[in-house]
């Protein structure tokens, strides 16, 4: 086993998770300035939404282009309830999650009847309808004017979430929870049902999986993630307008997902952080940065279609299989019983969707 392999194994261990969490906890202390903490916190918020997208698109295989719309629904629910109706932040926050789930259910029931590209473009239109409603329904949403003075999450007198660093930790907590739940789902029987649907509707149905129920569940989960992220976002930026529902955000999220590795567990986080920091560092190019970013995107999907994490996992999966093969051959030649299960590291199979 060479060094590269050892390192790659290390990436899969619980110790690695611990290191990542510790690094995240320490980040505000090592960050050069508050701006970096702010960007990181914002990236965490986006990452939550991207994890949602990963459930419907990565696991279940349905490209949902209304995702940004549900992000906006979360943000607007929070903003309207707190600003116009005086709800306390956390109540409104829960309501945002619930409204994301309910509206997701409605949209899911209608749009999931369509398949493949039809579903994708139909949801693109659903997203646009959400945008139009936010923009036009002035009585409810303040229309094009947007909503100002959204309160920050209340810290119950203990912490002040208008400060960047406390908010960073808040976002971190929500993100870790999101990843944790996403991992749970992905590695459970539920996640397996979703993946079966991704392979083929016909196959999944013949395995006794109720297509509509599972797809709607995945869709609702994803919209809930999106609207929770949106609500956090509203509490962070504290001003929102219809632009929040622009498809551009959906495209951004797909990019994050793809760069990190669609359908993998750490891909969404990796992709979101990588692209967020990349765009920040390309700021010096100002309006010309898309001239760099556009082709970069193209190159990426051509040469690393599985994203960074996906490429890593496939490579590692192959290697593990090869290792087992040799182990088996050796043991066979030594005429020992096959150490089949002993060799299989527990996280091997988790790794494939991890």
């Amino acid at each position: 086993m060479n060094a590269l392999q050892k390192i790659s194994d290390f990436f899969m261990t619980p110790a690695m998770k611990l290191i990542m969490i510790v690094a995240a906890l320490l980040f505000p202390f090592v960050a050069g300035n508050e701006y970096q903490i702010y960007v990181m916190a914002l990236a965490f918020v986006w990452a939550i939404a991207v994890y949602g997208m990963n459930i419907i698109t990565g696991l279940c295989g349905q490209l949902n282009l209304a995702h940004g719309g549900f992000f906006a629904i979360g943000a607007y629910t929070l903003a309207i309830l707190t600003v116009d109706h005086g709800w306390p932040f956390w109540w409104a926050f829960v309501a945002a999650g619930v409204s994301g789930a309910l509206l997701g259910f409605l949209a899911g029931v209608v749009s999931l009847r369509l398949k493949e590209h039809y579903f994708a473009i139909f949801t693109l239109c659903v997203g646009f309808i959400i945008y139009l409603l936010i923009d036009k329904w002035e009585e409810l949403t303040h229309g094009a004017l947007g909503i100002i003075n959204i309160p920050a999450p209340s810290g119950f007198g203990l912490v002040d979430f208008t400060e960047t660093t406390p908010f960073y930790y808040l976002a971190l907590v929500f993100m870790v929870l999101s990843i944790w739940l996403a991992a749970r789902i992905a590695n459970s029987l539920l996640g397996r049902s979703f993946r079966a649907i991704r392979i083929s509707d016909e196959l999944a149905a013949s395995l006794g999986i109720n297509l509509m129920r599972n797809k709607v569940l995945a869709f609702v989960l994803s919209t809930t993630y999106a609207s929770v992220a949106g609500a956090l976002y509203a509490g962070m930026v504290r001003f929102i307008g219809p632009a929040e529902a622009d498809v551009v955000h959906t495209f951004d999220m797909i990019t994050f997902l793809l760069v990190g590795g669609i359908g993998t567990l750490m891909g969404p986080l990796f992709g979101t952080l990588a692209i967020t920091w990349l765009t920040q560092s390309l700021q010096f190019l100002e309006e010309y940065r898309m001239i760099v970013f556009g082709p970069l995107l193209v190159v990426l999907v051509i040469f690393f279609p599985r994203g960074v994490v996906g490429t890593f996992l496939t490579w590692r999966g192959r290697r593990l299989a090869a290792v087992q093969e040799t182990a088996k051959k050796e043991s066979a030649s030594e005429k020992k019983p096959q150490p089949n299960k002993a060799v299989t590291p527990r996280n091997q199979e988790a790794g494939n969707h991890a």
Partner: protein
Amino acid sequence: AETVTIGFTGPLSGGAALYGQNTLEGLQMAAREINNKGGFKVGDETYEINLVSLDDKYAPSQAAVNGKRLVQQYNAPVIFTPHSGGTFALQAFNQRDDFLVMSYTSVPTVTEKGNELTVRIPPTFTGYMKPFTKIAMAENGKKVAIANATHDYAKYWTKAFVPTWEAMGGTVVADNPMDYNKSADFYTGVSKVLAEKPDVLFIGGASEPTALVAKQARQLGFKGGFVIMDQAKMGEMSKIIGGYKMLEGSVGVVPLTMYEEQGAKDFVAKYHKQNDGKDPTTEVAYNYFAMHTVIQAMKEAGTVADSKAIRAAMGDALKNLAEEHNPYGVTEIDAKGGMMADPNIATVKKGGTVELQRISEVLGE
């Protein structure tokens, strides 16, 4: 020499890029001017301006990120932003992080909510309501149809305009705003409002699409006049539709090039020289003025870092600002941070001649 960093966050790409770039251009022009003269003096120290501009694509959240960056990483005491959304997003933390927001928007709410470190650069649009109404009624009649744009700024305008019009005895016969930036075609919308036979059409968005709306209204047989929201500049419109003939009976604002005042003339001449005879936009002129004002205020306050002191010195800065740096002749800033001016408004008379009047003249004050 030392440098002082001035920040900018605005749309430099995407649909609003032109607008953002125009505002930035004004800032750059002023900064260049000052730096070329070897900087400016505060106390004993000479400073040069380092203008750092970041793109936010008109997105408030990106404006907030940029704001954080400009403050934390570049230590900018002053940040310019040319949109209300960006202003609101910056206002979430500008007092805590201690920087001055220089907001180029005429939306009144940016200074009405009591933020102490915000300056609104242009006058609010509410000043135009009465004179526009008065002139339009006199030239054309009392029935107005609303066919302006749908973005936030246009909405604010409509909200202020309709009550004024009605209070002065007019009626609104049709209300059908249209998305000027996204619509493929205005024929449908325009024919809808014209079906109600208005005397006056209230239009306005960016100059170019506004010109198209006016043109299509004429093509569909509209004979009355237009009230043109201040975002559109008649001069720029006239380039699209070939002169002022089509705008007969209209009231609106004109570009700086038509101003008679010396400050305006000086600025226009300077700009022409630097840009091969291209006309300066309002955005360029106001932001040029604003940058000079900020620097003047720093001089008055004796500090380049203390944003509160700089804000406090704004009033004095305006008084002592050189005329050539103040093309619009702004003289005062109100307690909440709004600049006050008495801009020219223009009426297009029969035959396409343009008549200029100060707001105060129209209202007879």
